């Protein structure tokens, strides 16, 4: 479904990625991990079509993201780490944005809000950042787009809301849908991921299933496996 072929990306003449190949299939929740500044958010922006690769191609269900055609945009939703919501009631988002997404379900949106315990009639500007994030995540899930990109979705969420997010994400995953999550808070969602991609120093350090990651790291903890991969990579560079 998502094919990243030999892409390079430069940000202000500084190399971020060199010759990267990646493939993500539908029906998975994939983690995108890496150190600060490794280019996780950039990868999400490339996939969303907000940035063009310097070289190489990206194809999502046969579409080039950067062309930002209407059919492509109807099937993708990105929740950035920070965002601005309009001064309206949460329920108004249905009227404002819902009609742009053919598979949007207003009922699902209201159910998601209910699960996150956010009143549908609350004014978005008066909500805390965490509350706003819950509204936007509820909306994103209700759009039922085939590709959902989440950048640090658990930032600002309380413990109970993180549990709700896990529940909602696993419940609303289907065979046509791919969810890519960029995060530093691995523990918040680690049992949800079935695929892991680690970006390190402009290259892909890992791109395989969670199962294989556990086998490689000889531990159930994704965090420890991640650290082991980094250590091994460091050794390889030194050799």
């Amino acid at each position, binding site marked *: 479904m998502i094919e990243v072929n030999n892409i390079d990306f430069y940000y202000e003449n500084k190399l971020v990625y060199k010759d990267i190949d990646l493939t993500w299939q539908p029906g998975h929740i994939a983690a995108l991990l890496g150190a600060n500044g490794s280019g996780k958010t950039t990868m999400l922006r490339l996939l969303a079509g907000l940035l063009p690769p310097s070289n190489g191609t990206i194809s999502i269900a046969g579409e080039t993201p950067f*062309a930002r055609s209407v*059919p492509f*945009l109807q099937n993708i939703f990105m929740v950035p780490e920070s965002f601005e919501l309009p001064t309206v009631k949460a329920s108004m988002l249905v009227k404002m944005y819902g009609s742009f997404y053919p598979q949007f379900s207003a009922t699902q949106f209201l159910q998601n809000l209910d699960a996150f315990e956010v009143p549908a009639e609350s004014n978005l500007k008066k909500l805390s950042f965490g509350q706003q994030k819950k509204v936007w995540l509820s909306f994103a899930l209700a759009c039922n787009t085939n590709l959902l990109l989440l950048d640090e979705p658990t930032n600002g969420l309380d413990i109970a809301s993180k549990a709700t997010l896990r529940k909602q994400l696993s419940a609303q995953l289907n065979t046509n849908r791919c969810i890519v999550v960029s995060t530093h808070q691995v523990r918040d969602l680690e049992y949800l991921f079935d695929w892991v991609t680690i970006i390190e120093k402009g290259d892909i350090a890992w791109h395989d299933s969670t199962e294989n990651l556990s086998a490689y790291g000889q531990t159930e903890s994704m965090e420890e496996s991640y650290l082991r991969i980094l250590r091994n990579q460091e050794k390889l560079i030194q050799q």
Partner: protein
Amino acid sequence: MKQFSMKRLSNLITTWWFENKFSFFRSVGFLFLLQVLVIWYWISMNRYAPPHVLWTLLTMVLLFMQGQRISNAFKSLHDTETGTQWLLLPATPHEKFISIFFWNSLVFLISGIFLSIIMEKTALLIAEQLYISNPIAYEFRDVGTNEFFFSSDYFSTDNGFMKMLWGFWLACQFLFYWAAIRIKKGSNILSALILMAGFYIYGFYIRTLHPIFFKKNTGWDGAWEVNYHEYIEGVGERNYDLNETLTSCLQISLIAVCIYLLYKACTNLIRETKISQ
């Protein structure tokens, strides 16, 4: 998939309204406040109020605010930090452009003009009542009522100049933004050139091809003075005296501000188009 969809456009127009209604009302409210102050000033100054300066001030504020609105609207379209939602909203750049044009150019401008017409009528009514109560104390200059607003008078059949000017301003915005979407290479410079050429062509058009005839006299009398005389066939001559130094400066500044804002808005729109294509 349709390149242009009325359904998507109406969705965008609705969305824009929900997102921006408060800032829209704030802008219109500011104009209203300014007009109240101008009327209060005009009434209190009686015959000594300089109508041209007031007219220019109001017009400048309206155009400046309008230009700023458009420029900011297009800026958010290409801003990957704050404009992500707009950028990823499933609609074409043309549809997004028209929805912005609809609100910021058409509706905002018309709201400003209607507001002025209402205020003009109110001012005339007050002036009339004051004159009836004391004809000697309140002898308002006729010129003040006719020229200090971009008012209903400018839309009457015997006043082609202002009608054409506002129509031209609106057409300019539409055409330049539309061109900005389509132009691919060297678009920033080209759009600025088109913009300048538009003003010159318009000047040529009103001077030579249209029955409205302009005579312009420019002279130095301690400051630059400009006089325009409009002659309409079958109606007669009407003067637009811009012979006050401050007014002349404001008029020139107004044109400069308009050009700058249009250029800025075009540039922002081009960035969005470049990303999308």
